[in-house]
């Protein structure tokens, strides 16, 4: 038992180490802050044009548009997360360190999840201001966002590792990732419909599905990241 706790503590420490590393790199490179967040806001504005700035339509479509935008941001964030390891052979450090692949996966996914949460944190006020949405249940919105971004980050980081080191990785990642995360789009949108008072659905039951998706994909990543690292 004692040994197991020690292993878990080491694993958690390594996950924190990698997540902190990626977030620090992102903070300095200003990719999320300078490119992904403005991109997300831009998409909101463009949707406004596309839907003819029609208030009722926008209000109805708000939860879906918001999560669609987060999905796009996921692709960008994961691509960046993969690229960080390939520049100047930096990822070799992780390989040679002998760190458990599950820890490397957990750390990279955690860093992506934090960035996606930042995107949601910008988009949510964005839809309130631009689309006139009203937040009726902040706890539901927060918990759903946590579960959804964690799931997106887990599936994204695993599939990002699938295409790491491949020349065509920029174009292949979306076709691998977007079909698989369809449940997140469905569930997070429904949860937000409840949280923004747009539809009479039980948002919390959708949070359950998001949690299930996250747990399953974190487990897949913990198992499958190792073989992928070996092949890189």
């Amino acid at each position: 038992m004692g040994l197991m706790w020690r292993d878990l503590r080491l694993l958690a420490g390594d996950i924190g180490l990698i997540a902190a590393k990626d977030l620090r790199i992102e903070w300095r490179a200003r990719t999320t802050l300078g490119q992904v967040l403005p991109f997300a806001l831009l998409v909101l504005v463009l949707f406004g044009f596309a839907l003819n700035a029609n208030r009722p339509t926008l209000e109805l479509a708000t939860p879906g548009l918001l999560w669609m935008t987060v999905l796009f941001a996921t692709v960008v964030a994961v691509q960046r997360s993969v690229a960080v390891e390939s520049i100047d052979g930096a990822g070799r450090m992780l390989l040679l360190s002998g760190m458990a692949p599950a820890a490397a996966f957990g750390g990279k996914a955690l860093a992506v999840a934090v960035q996606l949460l930042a995107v949601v944190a910008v988009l949510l006020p964005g839809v309130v201001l631009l689309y006139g949405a009203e937040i009726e249940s902040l706890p539901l919105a927060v918990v759903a966002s946590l579960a959804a971004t964690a799931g997106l980050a887990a599936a994204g980081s695993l599939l990002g590792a699938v295409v790491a080191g491949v020349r065509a990785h920029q174009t292949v990642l979306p076709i691998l990732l977007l079909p698989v995360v369809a449940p997140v789009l469905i569930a997070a949108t429904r949860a937000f419909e409840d949280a923004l008072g747009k539809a009479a659905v039980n948002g919390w039951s959708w949070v359950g599905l998001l949690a299930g998706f996250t747990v399953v994909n974190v487990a897949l990543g913990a198992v499958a990241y190792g073989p992928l690292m070996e092949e890189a």
Partner: protein
Amino acid sequence: MSAVRLEGAVVLLGRFPALAGADLSVDPGEVVLVRGPNGAGKSTLLHLCAGLLPLSEGRGEVLGCDLGADRAAVRRRVGLLGHDTALYGELSPAENLDLWARASRVDAAVVPGALGRLGVPERLWAVPSTRLSAGQRRRVALAAIVVRRPELWLLDEPHAGLDGDGRELVSDLMSEAASAGAAVVLASHETGPADDLATRTVTMAGGTVGADAV
């Protein structure tokens, strides 16, 4: 026990056999210089010994670990200096080495000593690595190997891009490591400072290792 023993090692990069049946044996305490023109397979040989590439044919053993069965175990015990520096550009030298030490379960307190040993000026320790000169980044990459104190040093053109001072430093490091019982394999395509250091020289061509050159 040999530090490295390769027999008929074939390594594919995509469909190209970068190593086409390489044999090599290195004992602890040896400094082996691998010579050969560009494209002979020197870098691939070093990466194979570091456990970074799968062996597609032949046999290989590094530090007692079978390359076919457990490359991960090999990776934990070697130090590799490649063409690239394997540093995160946005992180400073100190941050890079601190991360490296923690990830490899080495006491991070040795980091300042290693940076000092490689003559990286203290004012550069907290500067993002991309802002360092190529020579300075190379010194930081070498400091990473010092941090780990590996049993096998694998150095790809270690003297390239360094000034006279740096070259001397690298040579000192290698002889120190060898006298402490580590094995050193270094690759170089030019005659230079590496020649005097080597206890043995082998020549590579066409993905194979030839008999000792004179």
